[in-house]
């Protein structure tokens, strides 16, 4: 008797499982292909974004509107060809519902045509060149654009009464972007600007800094990749420029939260503009920083992490809005005009440009409890990317 009921139970279970099959096929998982540089010179970008995306999923559950979210992380080692190949694999073989990641501009640019053809929403979580969102109608950005931040630094410098500024930028795409924006905004405000470009491969800034020291401007505006930025500040101090009354303005990448603590006291001289600081004073951010550090062995989240976290949010929110349907066109439509409270402050996706609209903060580095932090002292609210906002 007992055996028979067992058998019966098994049959019943099998039949319900079979009956359940079509239902399960309908709610197949929504896959997100996350392409990041996990090795090579930009591995820290990948590490930060991956950790943030995983944290978002852990906090918000892996199910949205009845569909399970599946994250597939791929390493492109910041080689554009690899990024493109991986994107193709993810689209064709894994049938991802969205692509995300993209550590550098060329990597995002290489993938954009694929997004257009396959109609796959593509969330750029890191790359910061203004024009990326124009390369495909399926690209949405949750990081920042260089002109967005730089224009506000230039505006602030002008209101502080600075008249003459020397720009020192690393000679590569984003550096030149920053130089152009700063010069434009600052000269419109009535100041004069002198431009210097430093080869990217050779991070000895001494001759350039000596030139600045001799021309005695009101301030330097600097743009350099984050590790090199630390070198820049050290040599700025070594040359005694901090005592000569020349102020150091910079894009926030120079005091990257990820490595800020290793820079020591020279970092204290910098005034930077940026969209995110791990020291941002809001409940959402303290919760984010605490959870991030707990999950990642004390690593401090930086602007890359917040880009990844918000990118996941955009995907979650859009999938929710489409009721789990998740087709490319519907997802992109749903992402346009999204607005939410991010750890960095209030943000939204511009419906026209699909680029992020966010606050830009000016910060100075301060020592608190023995650690260095970027402390915000001025806020520019809801800044659009000026390169596209201009009529």
């Amino acid at each position, binding site marked *: 008797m007992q055996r028979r009921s067992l058998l019966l139970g098994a049959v019943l279970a099998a039949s319900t499982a079979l009956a359940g099959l079509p239902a399960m096929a309908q709610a197949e998982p929504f896959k997100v292909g996350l392409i990041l540089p996990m090795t090579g010179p930009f591995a820290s970008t990948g590490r930060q974004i991956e950790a943030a995306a995983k944290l978002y999923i852990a906090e918000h559950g892996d199910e949205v509107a009845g569909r399970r979210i599946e994250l597939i992380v791929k390493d492109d080692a910041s080689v554009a060809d690899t990024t493109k190949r991986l994107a193709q694999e993810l689209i064709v073989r894994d049938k991802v519902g969205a692509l995300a990641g993209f550590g550098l501009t060329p990597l995002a640019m290489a993938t954009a045509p694929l997004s257009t053809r396959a109609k796959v929403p593509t969330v750029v979580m890191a790359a910061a060149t203004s024009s990326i969102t124009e390369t495909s109608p399926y690209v949405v950005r949750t990081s920042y654009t260089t002109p967005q931040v730089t224009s506000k630094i230039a505006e602030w410098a002008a209101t502080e009464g600075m008249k003459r500024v020397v720009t020192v930028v690393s000679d590569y795409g984003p550096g030149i972007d920053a130089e152009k924006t700063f010069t434009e905004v600052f000269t419109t405000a009535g100041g004069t600007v002198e431009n210097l*470009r430093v080869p990217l491969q050779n991070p000895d800034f001494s*001759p350039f800094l*000596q030139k600045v020291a001799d021309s005695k401007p009101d301030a330097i505006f600097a743009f350099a990749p984050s*590790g090199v930025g630390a070198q820049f500040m050290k040599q700025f*101090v070594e040359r005694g420029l901090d005592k000569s009354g020349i102020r150091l303005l910079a894009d926030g990448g120079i005091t990257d939260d990820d490595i800020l603590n290793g820079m020591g006291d020279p970092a204290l001289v910098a005034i930077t503009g940026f969209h995110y600081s791990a020291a941002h004073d809001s409940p959402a951010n303290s919760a984010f920083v605490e959870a991030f550090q707990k999950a990642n062995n004390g690593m401090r989240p930086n602007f890359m992490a917040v880009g990844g976290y918000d990118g996941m949010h955009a995907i979650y929110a859009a999938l929710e809005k489409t009721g789990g349907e998740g087709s490319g066109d519907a997802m992109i439509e749903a992402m346009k005009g999204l607005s939410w409270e991010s750890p960095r402050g209030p943000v939204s996706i511009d419906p026209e440009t699909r680029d992020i609209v966010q606050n830009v903060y000016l910060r100075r580095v301060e020592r608190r409890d023995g650690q260095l932090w970027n402390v915000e002292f001025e806020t520019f609210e809801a800044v659009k990317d000026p390169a596209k906002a201009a009529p």
Partner: protein
Amino acid sequence: MSTILIDGIAYGMLLFVMASGLAVTLGLMNFVNLAHGAFAMIGGYVTALAMNRLGVPFLLTLPLAFLVPALIGAVAERTLYARLYRRSHLDQVLFSIALVFMAMTAADWLLGSSQMLITLPGWLQGRFEIAGIGVGRYRAFLIVLCAVLVVALQLVLARTRFGARLRAAVDDQRAARGLGINVGGIFAATFAVGSGLAGLGGALGIEIMGLDPTFPLKIMVYVLIVVTIGGTASLTGPFLAALIIGTADVAGKYYIPELGAFLIYLLMIVLLILRPQGLIAPAR
């Protein structure tokens, strides 16, 4: 002007310390060792890690930055390099460039790809003034230290028994062996010292050139230029070349920043057209 000159000399001295080992292996032992920069990187990492993880003071890490690469160099010479002395230069180039890439990925894997940062002791930070000329303390320190090294190296090569044996071994290996000179041992020792010097250069260079896993490639070009321009007949040639390149690089970036890093290549072309054998050509 004077500040630029001093910066340039300090930079040149640093280049010389890194290049001197290569000048010896390439010039005296006739071995093309592109992996020289890898030893410089090892030295840099030894100093950075000893300072940041173990809290060793900067000055005490310098002997370590010499010894560790020297030891690795000695082992590599006996196990790997010794097999390639008689092979063609192409084989040597392929072999040593492969070592560079292995060293770079190994460093990336073990220690991450970000720039290594160190904090110098207080007395080496900032600058002081002599007769109205601002001099960076660290750069002055570099000049003094490297000048001592240059003199010591030259004395060892020219005046000691070891130097004489090395020159003999290089000039005619068979005759030297016949006279009872341990050629293998001498080559190993020389290679180790060269690697150690590279390591020391790497450690001293962190503050000026930065340190990350791409360091061997970044420095390779500069070091090769120094050795090519200087010629390989003696250490005086590379020393002069390092000073010229260092000063030209710094001054070029100061006076004509648009040309940036291009100036030294221009200089190399001109110097090599004028003196294809190097600044100081072999006597033969």
